[in-house]
């Protein structure tokens, strides 16, 4: 059986599902990534998730991921500030990255279901995770199961979670729901909150769930707004926006989300970073993803100016 007290002890704050900057040749721009991480951490992010969905994780090889993380560690970014999202199809590739993360003493890893196959059986999924977790030795590395159906096309059913937690509960630090479905988070909390911590990546749910920690893509741009949402009962802080009425973090989150109706999130968030950092290098996405077309960029630029981001407080 798992030990709920130790499991629930320390996943707090905002962990940014970090966008990955690319050079013109589409290799990772390591210097730009480093300065972005530093800026997020100084703005109050607890840590970063590298190569998650919004970090275009599926577009990079294991070697590229390991090389980027090694560069960041050498540059002084703390290993305890890094979670590595692992979304490989082949179990040996997953294990290779897990072992790398263990050796590098990263804070933890997020492991999602393989993405290639659809309509996987409960038994098949259970065997997959059983094999993986059985091959991972005991270590300080925090392992999160990552529900990411937008990328993996696989919902991990509750029966599978129950089976995994029963067999490997001690190794599982938490469940991360990046499905965007609030009802799924609530169901998982009802079923498994006594065994593991359940975290939602949906910023709009954080207050209602009294979340203490989250993984957020919006935090690439508004880390402090997301951070304030985690402290619902103590959230008396508001942002003073010149020329506008006093607004709380809820209002600013809704305003920010309304900038992107039906726009592709990764390209849109990258475009916003070009506006903040005054650097068009952030536009690059690795194909098959692509940047926004010029009309959409012009429109989003207008909306973002109107949003009037307060970079020191948001």
């Amino acid at each position, binding site marked *: 059986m798992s030990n709920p007290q130790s499991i629930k002890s320390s996943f707090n704050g905002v962990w940014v599902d970090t966008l990955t900057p690319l050079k013109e040749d589409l290799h990772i721009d390591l210097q730009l990534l480093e*300065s972005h991480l*530093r800026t997020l951490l*100084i703005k109050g992010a607890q840590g970063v998730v590298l190569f998650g969905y919004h970090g275009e994780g599926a577009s990079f090889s294991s070697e590229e991921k390991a090389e980027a993380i090694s560069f960041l560690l050498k540059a002084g970014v*703390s290993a305890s*500030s890094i979670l590595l999202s692992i979304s490989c199809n082949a179990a040996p590739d997953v294990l290779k990255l897990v072992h790398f993360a263990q050796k590098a003493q990263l804070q933890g890893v997020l492991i999602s279901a393989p993405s290639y196959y659809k309509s996987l059986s409960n038994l098949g999924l259970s065997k997959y995770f059983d094999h993986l977790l059985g091959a991972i030795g005991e270590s300080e590395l925090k392992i999160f199961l990552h529900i990411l159906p937008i990328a993996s096309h696989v919902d991990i059913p509750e029966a599978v979670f129950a089976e995994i937690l029963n067999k490997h509960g001690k190794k599982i630090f938490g469940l991360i729901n990046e499905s965007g479905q609030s009802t799924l988070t609530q169901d998982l909390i009802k079923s498994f909150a006594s065994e593991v911590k359940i975290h939602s990546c949906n910023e709009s749910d954080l207050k209602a769930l009294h979340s203490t920690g989250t993984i957020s893509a919006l935090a690439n741009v508004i880390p402090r707004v997301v951070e304030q949402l985690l402290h619902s009962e103590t959230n008396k802080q508001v942002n003073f926006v010149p020329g506008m009425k006093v607004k709380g973090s809820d209002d600013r989150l809704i305003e920010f989300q309304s900038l992107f109706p039906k726009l592709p999130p990764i390209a849109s968030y990258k475009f916003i970073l070009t506006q903040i950092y005054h650097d068009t290098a952030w536009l690059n996405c690795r194909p098959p993803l692509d940047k926004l077309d010029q009309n959409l960029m012009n429109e989003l630029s207008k909306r973002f100016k109107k949003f009037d981001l307060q970079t020191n407080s948001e």
Partner: protein
Amino acid sequence: MDFNNTWYIIEHQKKYEVISHKDLMALDASSYQMIQNYRTHHDALMEMSRLVTQDIANVHEKLNHLKK
């Protein structure tokens, strides 16, 4: 992470500036906009050079547009 020996690019009084962590902490938070944090003074200066060069190019482009 320890940011004590790091450097920032800020927009302060409508100009880009490179500033140390200690000096940034002494500024009134409403008087500047923090852009990015850098590990070394050199990295921050290089980025400021890029930003200034980019601004000059943008002004040139606007002037050329006006001349047409």
